[in-house]
């Protein structure tokens, strides 16, 4: 009834009837790109407001209250303000790299959406290496943080950029390894096939067959997204603001745009691989459209990430690295070995 798929199918059929195949690909790529860009922007606007409200209420404050009903216009007002901010480029900065760091950061976050299934049939391209592609693309964030840290010609930025790189590459290994268990059960890398296999009641979700894998994934993903308790790169009390000290105006805004998009991305991966994607927890709840289930689960996961942020204190940088290499990595290996035996024996 409220499924969005027939609409897109109709548009696709219409395009096929008036254009040759090559141009259909081009037009639909631009069309879907524009749609996802719009959807992602709305999500980011909402997340920024939501994070401020969640943090406020967890600390018994109100948060933004004056722009619109309970401050819902606050993010838009902030965006307008950032658009009008003077854009300072330090005299000694490497100008070209300085300009392109936020571009790389945003593109790395945005390109992951090529293969995220928002609902039944609501996927832009079901790549057959889906999950590997997402991991590969989102890792480009490291490059952008290094670019930003290095090009700013600022000591805080440089330290922040190096720390970010060290942190993200350290958690990259357990993150990739934690997904191997799901792939071994699913025997595919395609996001759609993984979701289809989790149909039916909620106990078919892979989180119940891969609990250890899910825990490793979620912790590593929190670190990948630079979220507290792993926000060492931005540690305000020691590094001012990390890699983005010298950034202002829209360039600064792009880094945060990308960070909030990444929050949605890691939630979407968690939902797709471990929580049944667009499927309802029980078959009789199928009358609710699939995309509502998917977005609902994603929002719940994003809320948990915010909850983490306002509950846990920040870990120290040596604790952070030791945790990745001496705890998470062995745990991920154990998970793979257990899964291997499990599949062979059962």
């Amino acid at each position, binding site marked *: 009834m409220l499924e969005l798929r027939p609409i897109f199918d109709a548009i696709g059929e219409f395009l096929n009837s008036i254009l040759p195949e090559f141009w259909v*690909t*081009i037009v639909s*790529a*631009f069309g879907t*790109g*524009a749609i996802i860009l719009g959807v992602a922007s709305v999500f980011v606007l909402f997340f920024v407001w939501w994070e401020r409200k969640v943090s406020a209420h967890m600390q018994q404050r109100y948060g933004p209250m004056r722009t619109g009903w309970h401050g819902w216009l606050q993010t838009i007002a902030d965006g307008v303000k950032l*658009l*009008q901010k*003077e*854009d*300072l*480029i*330090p*005299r*000694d900065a490497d100008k070209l790299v300085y*300009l392109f760091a*936020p*571009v790389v950061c*945003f*593109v790395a976050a*945005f*390109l992951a959406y*090529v293969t995220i299934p928002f609902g039944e049939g609501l996927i*832009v*391209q079901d*790549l*057959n290496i889906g999950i590997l592609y997402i991991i590969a693309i989102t890792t480009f964030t490291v490059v952008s943080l290094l670019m930003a840290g290095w090009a*700013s010609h*600022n*000591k*805080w*930025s*440089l330290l922040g950029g*190096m720390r970010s*790189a*060290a942190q993200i*590459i*350290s958690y990259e*290994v357990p993150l*990739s*390894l934690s997904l*191997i268990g799901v*792939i*071994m059960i699913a*025997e595919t*890398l395609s996001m759609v096939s993984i979701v289809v296999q989790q149909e039916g009641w909620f106990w078919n979700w892979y989180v119940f067959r891969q609990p250890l894998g899910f825990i490793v994934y979620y912790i590593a993903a929190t670190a990948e997204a630079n979220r507290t308790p792993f926000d060492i790169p931005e540690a305000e009390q020691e590094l*001012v603001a990390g890699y983005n000290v010298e950034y202002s105006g*829209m360039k600064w805004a792009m880094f945060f745009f990308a960070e909030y998009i990444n929050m949605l991305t890691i939630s979407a991966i968690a939902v797709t691989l471990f929580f049944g994607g667009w499927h309802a927890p029980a078959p009789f709840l199928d009358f609710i459209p699939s995309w509502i289930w998917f977005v609902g689960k994603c929002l719940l996961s994003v809320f948990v990430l915010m909850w983490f942020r306002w509950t846990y204190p920040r870990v120290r*940088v*040596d604790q952070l*690295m*030791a945790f990745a290499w001496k705890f998470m990595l*062995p745990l991920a*290996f154990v998970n*793979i*070995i257990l899964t*291997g*035996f499990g*599949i*062979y024996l059962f």
Partner: protein
Amino acid sequence: MPDRFAGRLTALEMFGNYAYTGIWLLIGVGFVLVTFWFASLIRPQRPNPTKLENYECGEMPLSASYLQFNVKYYIFALIFVIFDVEVVFLFPWAVVYNSLGLFALIEMLVFLLILIFGLAYAWKKGALQWV
């Protein structure tokens, strides 16, 4: 034994799949650059020498910022390269694991033991110690 090449794509299908990635790359870069350009039309631009100094807690910057930093970053980057390449090898193995049976299990154990041995070696050598 299932036909492992059944799902193989033709060159044209491959283009159809990845054309999206390429075009989205253009959209992403274009979106950010157009936003910067639009902001440059409406924002003030009044630089002065003090404003363009690097931020160092409000003091005058003391020296060039490309200072020496800990060699540990380099060591962690090296360990990362080793492990990440091995993770890439695990992905295709994980996809076909179920159809290979006992052979895959033993292969996996040998491969993972080599990895774990490498980790233990790095650990013992103190490469994982962050000071």
